[in-house]
C-alpha cells in the first residue's frame, strides 16, 4: 500500500515504522467519509430512537364491550373504564358476533364480555363470570393489557361492596429500583455502547484486514520490516481510538438529550469499555485470519459477533427469560459481561468491589483472544 500522505497530515512526524503504519491506518479510516459518517451517525440515531420512539408499555387500550343486558351497573362499569385515561371504549354491543371482525381489523385490543343479568347476579352476591378476551398474537402486550383491565375490574368490585365490610385488600406499593420510570433510554444506552463498540472494532477490523488480504497488500506488509505483532497493533490502535471516541459521543448524547444517569465513576466506565474494545478487536482479527474474502469476513463477523451481541447479551431480551440450554451459551458472549458492568456503573453506581467478577471474566477473555489472534495471524504468515 503506497503511503501517499497529504501535505497537511504529514506534520507530526512519527519516528518508528509502527507510527507510520498507524498513521496510514488512520488515513484509511478518515478518508472514507461515508463509512465514518455512518459510524458516528448510527449510534446517535439509535440513542434517539430508543429514547423517543421505542416503548413497550401500553398507553391507549381500546376496549370492545359486550353487554347483553345493559343496565345502571354496566353503564357504571363502562363510565369507570372511560374515566381512566388509559382505556377507550370503542364499541358496546349486545352480542359477540362482531368481535372477530374487530380483532381482525385491529380496531379493538381487548374485549370485555359481560354475562346476561350482570347486575342481578352481583346484587345477589353470586360469583359473576366476566370474560376478558385479548389479542394474544402479541403475547407481551396481551398480558400487560390483561393485567390493566383486571386491575380496573378489581377497583370496580371493591367500590360495589357495602362500606365497612369491604373485601380484604393488600395494598401493594411497588418500586422500580435503579430506574423508577422504566425509561427505555436508561436501559438501552449501556447495551448500545456494547453494540457500537462491537460494530466498530470487530466488524471494521475484520473487514479492513481481510480487504488487505484480498487486494494482496497484506503480502507487501509481510515483506516489510514490520513484525506481525506490529501489524496487528497498527491495525487495531486506530479502531481502539475510534471506539473510544464513539463511546464518549454516545454517553454525551444520552446525557444531554435524555439525562441518562451516570451514578458511578466515569473513569471506570471508560476503562471497562477500552477493555471490552480490546476483546472485540481480537475477535475481529481472529475472524479475518480465518477467512479468505471480505464477504466471508463480513459474514463471520456478523454471525460471530454482531448477532450474539444484539440477541444473547441481555441488551434487549433478559437472559433470565431464555431457555435453560441457551443461558450457559450466553456466558461466552463478551457483551453479556460488559452490559452488566455498564448498567451497574451507570444505573446502580456500582464500583469495582461489586463488579470485579465480571471485569475479571472480560480481562480473561481479552488475554485469551489476544493470544489466539496473534497466534492465528502468525500461522497465516508462514
Amino acid at each position: 500500500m503506497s503511503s501517499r500522505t497529504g501535505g497537511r497530515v504529514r506534520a507530526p512526524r512519527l519516528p518508528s515504522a509502527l507510527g507510520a503504519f498507524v498513521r496510514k491506518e488512520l488515513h484509511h479510516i478518515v478518508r472514507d467519509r461515508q463509512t465514518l459518517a455512518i459510524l458516528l451517525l448510527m449510534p446517535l440515531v439509535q440513542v434517539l430512537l430508543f429514547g423517543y420512539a421505542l416503548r413497550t408499555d401500553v398507553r391507549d387500550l381500546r376496549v370492545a364491550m359486550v353487554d347483553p343486558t345493559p343496565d345502571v351497573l354496566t353503564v357504571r362499569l363502562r363510565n369507570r373504564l372511560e374515566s381512566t385515561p388509559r382505556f377507550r371504549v370503542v364499541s358496546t354491543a349486545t352480542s359477540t358476533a362482531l368481535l372477530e371482525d374487530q380483532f381482525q381489523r385491529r380496531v379493538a385490543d381487548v374485549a370485555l364480555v359481560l354475562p346476561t343479568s350482570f347486575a342481578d347476579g352481583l346484587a345477589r352476591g353470586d360469583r359473576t363470570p366476566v370474560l376478558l378476551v385479548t389479542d394474544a398474537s402479541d403475547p407481551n402486550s396481551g398480558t400487560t393489557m390483561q393485567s390493566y383491565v383486571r386491575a380496573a375490574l378489581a377497583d370496580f368490585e371493591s367500590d360495589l361492596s357495602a362500606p365497612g365490610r369491604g373485601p380484604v385488600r393488600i395494598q401493594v406499593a411497588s418500586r422500580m429500583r435503579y430506574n423508577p420510570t422504566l425509561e427505555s433510554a436508561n436501559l438501552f444506552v449501556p447495551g448500545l455502547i456494547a453494540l457500537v463498540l462491537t460494530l466498530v472494532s470487530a466488524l471494521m477490523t475484520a473487514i479492513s484486514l481481510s480487504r488487505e488480504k484480498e487486494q494482496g497488500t497484506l503480502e507487501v506488509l509481510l515483506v516489510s520490516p514490520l513484525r506481525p505483532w506490529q501489524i496487528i497493533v497498527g491495525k487495531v490502535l486506530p479502531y481502539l481510538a475510534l471506539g473510544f471516541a464513539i463511546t464518549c459521543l454516545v454517553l454525551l448524547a444520552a446525557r444531554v438529550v435524555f439525562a441518562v444517569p451516570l451514578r458511578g465513576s466515569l473513569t471506570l466506565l471508560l476503562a471497562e469499555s477500552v477493555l471490552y474494545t480490546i476483546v472485540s478487536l481480537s475477535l475481529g482479527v481472529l475472524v479475518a485470519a480465518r477467512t479468505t474474502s471480505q464477504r466471508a469476513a463480513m459474514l463471520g463477523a456478523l454471525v460471530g459477533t454482531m448477532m450474539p451481541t444484539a440477541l444473547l447479551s441481555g441488551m434487549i431480551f433478559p437472559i433470565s427469560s431464555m431457555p435453560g440450554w441457551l443461558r450457559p451459551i450466553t456466558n461466552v458472549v463478551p457483551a453479556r459481561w460488559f452490559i452488566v458492568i455498564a448498567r451497574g456503573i451507570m444505573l446502580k453506581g456500582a464500583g469495582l468491589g461489586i463488579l470485579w467478577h465480571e471485569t475479571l471474566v472480560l480481562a480473561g477473555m481479552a488475554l485469551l483472544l489476544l493470544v489466539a489472534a496473534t497466534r492465528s495471524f502468525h500461522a497465516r504468515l508462514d
Partner: protein
Amino acid sequence: MRTLRFLLRKEYLQIFRDRIMVAQLLLLPAIQLALLANAATFEIKSARLVVVDEDRSATSRGLVDRMRAGGRFELVKSTTSAERADDAMMRRQAGVILRIPREFERDLVRTHTAPVQLILNAEDGAAAGVTLSYAQRIVAEYASELAATLRLSTLGGEGPVAGQGRLDVRARGWYNPNLDYRFYMVPGILVQLVTMVGTLLTALNIVREKELGTLEQLNVTPVTRGQFIAAKLIPLWSLGLVALTIGMLVARFAFHVPMRGSVLLVFGTASVYLLAALGVGLLVSTMVSTQQQAMFVTFFIVLVYLLMSGLFTPVRSMPIWAQWIAQANPVMHFIEIMRAVMLRGAGLREIARSLAILSAIAVGVFSLSVRQYAKRAA
C-alpha cells in the same frame, strides 16, 4: 431477450459458485430463527425473590408460601434486614424484594387492609414490569383467599352475602391461547430475513462488480441498463423467495408456528415487498463505491427499518409522530401482514389496506432507484 437470458445465466452461475453466498442463504435463516425464536422473549421463567418478613406471622408466611408456590419466584434469601436485601439486589442476587411490614396480620384482621412493598430490579426494564404483574396477581389472589376465611370467622356464615357479589374474571388470549412468544417473533424474523437477502445482497452484488471494475466492462457492451438491472435483480428476487421458503419450513416444522391463512397470500405479499427491498439495495449501490461502505449503509438502513417496524416493540406504543413515520416503512407493513395471515388467518380483505400501502411504497422506491441508477451511470 436473448441477452437477458445469457446475463441471467451468468448471474445464477456466479451466485451458486460462491459458497459463502449459498451458505449465507441457507445458514442465516436457520441460525437466526433458532436464536431469535428462543432468545427473544420477555416471559419470565423464574425471578429470584428475597423476602424481608418483619411480621413473622402465619399470614405473612402464607403470602411467602403463595409466592413460592407458583414456580415463578425462587426464594433465595429470607432476612429481617432491609439493608441486606438491598445489598443482594445490588449484587444481582435478587430480582425482587418483598417486604412485609410489622403488624401485617393484625392490620388485616382489624381493618381488612394492610400494605406490602415490592421492590424490583429495573435494570432489565421489560422483565421488571412483567415480574411485577405476576407478583401483584399472586398478592391479589391471596387477599381474596384471606377474605373468604376472614368472612367465615367474623360473620360465622357461609355462602353468598348480599351486596358482596364478586367478579370472576376469566381471561382468554385469542389466536395464541398459550401466549407462545415464538409465534409472535417468527413471522417478524422471516421478514427481517427477506429484507437482509433482498437489500444487502443486492447492494453487495452490484458494488462488487464496481470494485472489481467489471461494471465498467459491462457498461461498454451493448447490454442496456434495463437488461443489466433485470439480470441483477431477478436472481436476487428469486433468492429472497427461496430464503423465505426455507424460513417458512423451519418455522412450520421446527417451531410449529401455525399457518392459519393462505400461503399464496404470504408469497404474493413477499413478491411485492421484495421489489421495495431490492430497490433500496439498488439505491445503496448507486451511492457507494466499496463493499465495506455498502455493508455499513445497508446495515444502518435495515437497522432503522427494523427498530421502527414493530418487530420488537409494538408500533401502537410509539408516540404519534413515530407512528406516522412507521407508516412509510415497508417492513412494518410486511410484518403486519405476515402476523395477520399466519396467526390470525386473515384473508385478502383484512390485509387490503396494508397491502395497498406496501404496494405503493414498493413501486415508488423501485422506480426511484431505477431512475437514480440510470442517472448515475449516464
